[in-house]
């Protein structure tokens, strides 16, 4: 097959696995996951890092910025204004003007606030940011964000950390069908098979954190997810047939037409 890079806002990436960093037991464990998987986009919560001393920060130093895009995220923000402030602080501290918008006003399930997310996206795009919003699997919201100018949409498969896989399958299918920007399935993917399934449906990438951080062997699990994402992508490109619940006669409704002998002269 021909080369198949992931294109986001004019940049090309080979890997289709993005990694979240919040839950790893150490910077070394995070580094192992990044290196083994070949991930090229790594997202870091700005509330966790000390931007005044980036070199001394464990989490920031785990990312090799010559190989990976360090994608700051706004997790913990409850309003658009808070998210915008965080993004600007990150840019002022020398990070690239890319931001993963996470507006999660309730701390239990960390579900995204659609209203504040759209508002923040509009504000940040006006300020020149490349915006990757974490959203509910809401096809209308996805279109609204795309029209506002976001670089991707990142619908959740299931609540963060739940490992439940594609609970929002039907809505994600619609988002993928309608989207003009890359669709990244984010949150809830607990096993490599979930990542593969997302990619087989036509998602452009997946983002995983908990399942990697919680594994005994962080590197191997990250690699397994990367391989699953790649396999799913390859299957999608190869033209995966639709699945059926049971065997079907090949033409139960129109087969009779073939039984009639063509009338000859």
């Amino acid at each position, binding site marked *: 097959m021909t080369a198949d890079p992931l294109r986001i806002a004019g940049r090309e990436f080979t890997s289709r696995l993005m990694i979240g960093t*919040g*839950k*790893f*037991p*150490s*910077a070394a464990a995070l580094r192992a996951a990044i290196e083994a998987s070949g991930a090229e986009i790594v997202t870091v919560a*700005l*509330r*966790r*890092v*000390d931007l005044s001393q980036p070199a001394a920060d*464990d989490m920031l130093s785990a990312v090799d910025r010559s190989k990976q895009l360090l994608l700051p995220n706004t997790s*913990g*923000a*409850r309003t658009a*204004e*808070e998210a915008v*402030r*965080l993004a*600007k*602080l990150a840019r*002022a501290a020398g990070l690239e003007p890319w931001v993963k918008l996470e507006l999660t*006003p*309730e*701390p*239990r*399930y960390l579900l995204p606030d659609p209203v504040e997310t759209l508002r923040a996206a509009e504000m940040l795009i006006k300020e020149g940011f490349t915006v990757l919003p974490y959203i509910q699997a809401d096809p209308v919201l996805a279109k609204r964000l795309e029209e506002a100018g976001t670089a991707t949409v990142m619908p959740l498969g299931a609540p963060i*950390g*739940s*490992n439940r896989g594609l609970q929002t399958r039907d809505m994600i299918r619609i988002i993928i069908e309608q989207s003009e920007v890359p669709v990244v399935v984010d949150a809830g993917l607990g096993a490599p098979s979930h990542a593969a399934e997302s990619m087989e449906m036509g998602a452009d990438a997946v983002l995983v*954190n*908990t399942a990697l*951080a*919680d594994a005994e062997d962080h590197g191997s699990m990250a690699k397994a997810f990367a391989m699953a994402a790649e396999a799913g992508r390859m299957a999608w490109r190869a033209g995966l047939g639709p699945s059926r619940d049971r065997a079907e006669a090949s033409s139960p409704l129109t087969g009779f037409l073939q039984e009639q002998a063509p009338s000859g002269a």
Partner: protein
Amino acid sequence: MEVLHAIERWPQERILAQVESASLADVDRVLAQEERELRDLPILFSAAAAQRLEPMAREAQRLTRRHFGRTIGLYVPLYLSNVCGADCAYCGYAVRSGIKERRVTLKPDEIHRECQRLAELGFQSVLLLTGEAPRVTPVGYIAQAVDIARTYFPSVAIEVHSLEHEDYRHLAEHGLDGVTIYMETYDREVYKKVHLLGQKKDYVYRLGAIERAGKAGVRRLSIGALLGLADWRVDAFYLAVHGLHVQRTCWQSALSLSFPRLQHAPERFKIPRLVSDRELVQLMLALRLVLPEAGFNLSTREAPALRDRMIPLGVTTMSAGSSTRPGGYVTHGEGTLEQFAIEDHRSPQEVAAAIRGAGYDPVWKDFDHAFDSAESAGYSLA
């Protein structure tokens, strides 16, 4: 008051009867469920459940890692004042505790010095505490202390007397992001017996304080029961009732629970219901199964050996290097009255090393000034 009704719906006799009647089969059924509810809690507090601590611990660990990852947040308490107008029978600060050591209230320059020392030690999250003396440490004083602390720490919480909604809102506008307020005991009879003077005598007013803080916009809410005063199963049950209620009513705030355990008290007070290590662990595991998304705080009241073993059982934040004397880090030394004796005397770096040793990442910073209004945060956003 709704939380009071929620508590009253569960008379103590009903809780204890269910604890008594729980069988091993009940415990195994609850453990096999994907999700647990309040009504499962008495079963998890039972003698039968005490035989299933290992599977409870495995499940508690799984749930905690799912939500919080393998991380432990670090914070430090900073006592601003040991002046107290209340008379809580178990407390070293009580006005009639009989302890004669010096009482002080830190002045602004002293607060600066204490904060600076703690920031140098690496802390980015501080808990400011006072006694129950609204006239000595009024809201204006607390607001000033919050202002000072915020110049050193991204995250500032308070543990002071119960306040009004407007007070909490005022403090939140100063950048306060956390409020801790322990009910001590939810058992009303016991509450009355041990709280002898001052505003704290008012059970209902104190019970409502954390919701007033949450509705005023405070992001982190922490509640707790002081174990040793009443039957731990009763207090822990009501703590869960309170926590579940707060999660519903203050849905934008993060809830955390504490289980401070009385091990020492002033001479005049005999601790009525001492809680063993085993019971403390069972209590914590059971609560984790019913409140999977609540933070669990563990202070230096507990000894190093136990603290280290509790890290993988559901704890999410720990204090370290604590002093319970106002000015205890720099300004004042021995001879100043402490609230209680701490058991874990290790330095913050030693505690962080123990956390890493347990396979967890010590998290110093988990909050940012950007969550406050830009003006007060003092950032230039050019």
